[in-house]
Structure formats: C-alpha cells, structure tokens
C-alpha cells in the first residue's frame, strides 16, 4: 500500500492493502450541488453522498443558485444541511456583485461574516471594466479572495463548442480561445492593479497557460485549476452531436489539452477540480445546442485521476498535491482540513463500468456512460 497521507494527518488503523493508495480526503474547487433552486438535477443529499463516497469530503460551490448566495445569513444553514444531509463540508463562494448582475458590489462584508471562503461572479458578465475594477477593490478591502471563470461574453455569445474544425463540420457555433484569454488578460491586469488574491478556475486553452505563467513570474497572488474532464476529452468527443460532451467552457483541441497537461506538470496549474454539474435526463434530450451544458463528474473523477498517474502525467504524490493539498490551500481551509482529517483508500487498478446504477450522483450526464474505467475509491475513513 502506498501511504500518501501527510505526516500531520492522523493515520487510520487499517490493514495495509496491496497495490492500494491511502490518500487524504479530496477537496473540490468547483462543484454545483443544485441546491437551492435546481433540485430536479440534484440535492445536497444526493450530491453530498456521491461526493463523499467518491472521496470528496470538502466541496467548494459557486453562488449561482436560486436564490443567489449573496446573503451572509443564508450560508450557515446551507453548510449545516450539506453536513447533515450529505455528509460533506461545503465551502461557499459568495456573490461578488448584487444578484450576480455585474453592476455593483454585493454585501460582501456580510458574506464574509457568514463564512464565505471567497467571492465570485460565477462566470456571469460584468457591466464594464470599471465595475470589475471597483468591485475587486471593494472585496479586497475586506480581505476576500476572488474566483474567476474567465469568459468575454461578446466573444462567446451563442457559442456551444470549441471554435475549430469539429464545430464547423457539425455546423455548431464556435467559442474562440479569445473568449477566455481576453477575459483572463483583463482580470490579471486588474489583480495586478488591486493586489487582490485571485483564483482562476477551469482554464481550457494553451494561451491561458502562457498568461498564467507570466502572472506567476511577476509574483501576482494568483492560482489556477483545470477541470478533470479537460485532461481526458477534446472537441473530438462531440462527434455525432454528442450532447453528453456539451459543457461550458467547452472541450478544446488536442493542442490545448497537451498544453494543459504540460502546465499541470510544471506547476503552472495548481489544482484539478471536478466541475461537477449534475443534470436530469431531460436536460440532454434535445438537439445539441438546445440541450443544457454540463457533465456529472464526481463518479468518474478518481478513475480519471488514476489514469493521469498511469499515463505518467503525475506521480501519486503530485496527484495528492493537485486534488487534495493545493485545493485546500487555495480555498483557505488548510487548518480545518487538517483538523477534520480523514483518509480514503483507492484501488488504482480496479476496473468498473460507468452505468446509471454504478453512478451515485443523481445526474447521469457523462460522456463516459457505459465506458469501463480503471481506478476507484474503495473505502473512506471519515469522522
């Protein structure tokens, strides 16, 4: 057994198992559990259980629920319910702007008091760059970190797939790289100006990795993550109008995927998130562009993580850094993470089939449905 628990973690009393890995609990930097407001797709209970059984004890969630998480007094109840009903520690990103409309700051001081770990506009647009600048200054006043999902709406409007041959071939409207890199450039310059600590989530393009490399070399207080599926799927997976591969930001090209993997290895990309977005069946039962974007990722996450080790992208130690330790640091929950402790046992060789029954998430929306994957969380040792 490969024991990958950090030294300051309490060791569980278990019989060592041959060829298994013992990891600290996973920390997810972006998952949507669909509560409040979208319970047809998932609940704190269904998605909490799915998260927990797949090794995620800590989950960071954005505020674009219904109602929007812009009121500090809402947060405590939500965290308690996530723990009670779902058995997970929920870490909430508060709204950066009121109603996420991108016009004026939300009550971020109140959100901080309510225990949000950072603020974000959850991928929704800002009215203009001045609003962006001022809301960042305002959030920085209260010592809050900001999460960005870079996207310039005027460049991505109407798009449903990476702008390239595959989209052209299928007659699908493209989303160019520029939609991400133009927004990322602006946001990095704003970070430089305001000094606010920032995390960039779900980067997809080669040029974004170059921009992050530059920002880090300048000593800007920035980190970034990539969604697990971006490391395993490309726009090729849209073949035949496969709505299960419809996700925003979109699956990119082979070249982008190689750059993401390089960035992951050289440390430019700090972490891997699940970008879990469960959806009910009806959401995907429409022509591609009229279906709802999103992939249910909790259940396949560890298998895809194991593949990164098998493919020599990461060592097991580096994997623990990318899916446990770095996310805990980025979320600012390190102390709590260590105090709560826990461990998960992974069989990196176990083969299993992704089916509607083996998936624990309420959302069965994944392009891996009916595929055989290798690697699974076989036991969790949580409080």
């Amino acid at each position, binding site marked *: 057994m490969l024991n990958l628990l950090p030294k300051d973690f309490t060791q569980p009393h278990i019989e060592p198992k041959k060829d298994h890995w013992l990891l600290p609990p996973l920390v997810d930097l972006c998952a949507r559990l669909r509560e409040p407001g979208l319970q047809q797709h998932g609940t704190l209970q269904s998605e909490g259980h799915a998260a927990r059984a797949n090794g995620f004890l800590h989950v960071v969630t954005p505020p674009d629920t219904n109602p929007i998480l812009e009121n500090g007094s809402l947060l405590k109840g939500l965290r308690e319910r996530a723990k009670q009903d779902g058995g997970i520690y929920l870490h909430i990103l508060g709204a950066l702007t009121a109603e996420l409309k991108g016009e004026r700051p939300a009550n971020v001081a109140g959100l901080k008091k309510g225990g949000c770990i950072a603020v974000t506009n959850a991928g929704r647009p800002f009215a203009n760059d001045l609003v962006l600048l001022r809301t960042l200054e305002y959030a920085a006043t209260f010592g809050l970190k900001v999460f960005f999902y870079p996207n310039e709406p005027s460049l991505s409007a109407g798009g449903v797939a990476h*702008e*390239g*041959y*595959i*989209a*052209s*071939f*299928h*007659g*699908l*409207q*493209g989303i160019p790289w520029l939609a991400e890199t133009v927004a990322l450039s602006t946001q990095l310059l704003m970070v430089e100006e305001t000094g606010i600590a920032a995390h960039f989530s779900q980067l997809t393009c080669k040029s974004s990795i170059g921009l992050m490399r530059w920002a880090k070399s300048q000593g800007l207080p920035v980190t970034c993550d990539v969604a697990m599926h971006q490391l395993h799927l490309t726009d*090729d997976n849209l*073949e*035949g*109008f496969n709505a299960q591969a419809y996700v925003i930001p979109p699956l990119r090209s082979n070249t982008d995927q190689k750059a993401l993997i390089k960035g992951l290895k050289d440390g430019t990309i700090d972490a891997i998130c699940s970008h879990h977005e469960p959806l009910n069946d*009806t959401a995907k*039962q*429409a*022509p*591609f*562009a*009229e279906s709802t974007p999103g992939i249910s990722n909790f259940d396949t996450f560890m298998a895809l993580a194991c593949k990164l080790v098998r493919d020599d992208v990461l060592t097991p130690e580096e994997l623990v850094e990318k899916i446990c330790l770095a996310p805990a640091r980025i979320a600012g929950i390190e102390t709590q993470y260590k105090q709560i402790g826990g461990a998960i046992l992974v069989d990196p060789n176990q083969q299993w089939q992704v089916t509607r029954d083996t998936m624990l998430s309420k959302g069965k929306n994944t392009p891996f449905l009916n595929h055989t994957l290798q690697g699974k969380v076989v036991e969790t040792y949580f409080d």
Partner: protein
Amino acid sequence: MTDSTQNPETVAQEQSAQSDIFDSTTARLNASLSKPQLNEDGHIRHFLGIEGLSREQLKAIIAKAESFFDANGQLINSPELEGCTVMNLFFEPSTRTRTTFEVAEKRLGANVLNIDIARSSTQKGESLRDTLWNLQAMTADIFVVRHSASGAAHFMATEVTPEIAIINGGDGWHAHPTQGMLDMLTIHREAPRPFEELTVAIIGDIKHSRVARSDIAALKILGVKEIRVIAPRTLLPKGIERYGVEVYENIDESVVDCDVLMGLRIQNERIGSPLMAASGEYFKKYGITPERVAKAKPDAIVMHPGPMNRGVEIASSVADGPQSVILKQVNNGIAIRMAVLSMAMQGQREYQALHGLL
C-alpha cells in the same frame, strides 16, 4: 438509442471509400453521422446528411430522381407513397423548400400534413420530444423537418422517433441534403461535362451555410476535379483548410476556367454586422456579375439555392441570363425530394420488416 447495426462488410467498404476522398478525421465523422440513416443493406431509411454516403448511393438518388421525368422532361406522378402520411414540420420559416416538398409528396400520392410549429405546442413549452411523440401517435410515416438547431434531424432519428423516416429539410448551419442533391442533379443534367472534369466555384457565406456544407460533401463524393470557395475571411468556417477545397479571397482569380458558379445567399442580418461592410462593397468584391461569368468557361452554368438578393450576391442580368439554371434547380428539387422520400420510406420498410416492426 436505436441500434442500427450494419453489415460489417458494408461499413468497411463505405469507410474505405470515404478515406480515399476525405482526411481520416472527416471520414470518421462522416461515418458516424451517416450510420443512423442507413439500414442493414446500406439503403437510406432516414435522409439526414450527404456526408458518409458513397458515390453509388448518390448516383442511385440521382437516377431515381431522373426516373420521375418523362421523355419530354416533364415531371410525372408516381403513387409510391399511397396510403402514407407525411408531416412537414417546419420549425423555421421556409417557402421554397416546404412548397417543393409538398408538391413532391402529393405527386407520390401521400397524405400531406403541414404542421405550423411556430404557432403550435412548442410555443406552449412542450418539449420537442413530446411534440414528435404526439405526432407519431397520429400515425405519421415520414417527418420532413427543418429546424434552427444543427443536429436536430439526427436527434429525432436517433433518440426520438427512429421508426419514422426523418427527412432533413435543413438543420442550423449543418446540412441541407435535399438542396445538396438537387444541386447535384442540376449539375448532372445541365453542366457541360461529367463530374470528374468539373471545376466548381462556391461563392459567398460558407460559414453560416448548410447548403455549402452539403454541396461540398456531395461534390467531393461525386469526385469533381476541383472545388473553390470564395469569401471574405469572416464568412469562412474555422478549419476550412480541412474541407479539401481551394480557398480564394479574390473572386476574379477564382472564377477563371470554372464550369459551375454557385452563389450563396447573404442573409440580411449579416449585412452591416461586424462580418461585412455595406452590401454595395460585398457586391463589388464578391458579386456574381456578367464580367465575372465571362471569365469562367464559355459554357459554364450559374446556380443559386434561393432566395436571391439581386444586386447583393448576384447581378439580375446573370440570374435571368442564358447561363443561369436557377429555375431548373427549383424544378429538380421536386424530383430529388420525390426520390429521397420514396427511397427513405422503402428503406424504413425494409428495416421494420427485418426487426419485426411491421
């Protein structure tokens, strides 16, 4: 999803035929898009797209369409769909396509129903699947469908009503296969030389055009000598270099020695958008004018899928001139639609007989 397992030999033959014409990615995409439209014998039971069909299959459609002309070149009636119910589901407005489909259906003796979707249940929030299932329960045999979403016809054929023959009347920017085939029938009947010897110029908005995609696929499968596409960069799709066509930005150079000039419609909403300057400049740089037609071969033909913007993409004198075959395209559209409707119904019957569904 319906399992349309095919004879492995047929699949292998089709894929190798495709990989001679297209790059490997395109051949793979073609095969996977085409698979749901074929029955076990390789006959169409839906008509979703031209991509993935073989030269023989396209020639069979052309031959079937030609059988609907009498010795004087007049369209005949042929009651091959007697007792069948065809529903025309136009989720997007259309005059020409819808009318020619209706004429074709009536000439085949079918019961025809035009469902005005814009004013029906989808406006009340009913899902596309529920709408189709309700129409299926009203004993439809064929759906002719036009939809603004690319892949809509594929979605219906694979996930909603696989036992109804789906004829794609245009889906988003993706495909307009009956237009593609009526263009091939027109070239076959009107062009001065056989497909293998032709140089074809496609001029205009390639990026947003389902007609261009279907025409390019068909022309490649039929083995034309050269396909040239001419457009400003804003109207060319990403990855155009992988379509196996020659890209030109200068129309005057591109039309030299062409046998076929195909204009494409510029949609009104594109004019004055960031994609192009005023329509006057477009006509100056990309319009099909008598001077440009004169640079092509003397017996070249001029085509346009309609509706035309005279003075924007084509000069009136060319549209109405001796080399124009635009009205013949419309007439050929009826024959092609008769052919495709009849063949898909036949293919669907074969499929259903084999699967015990009849």
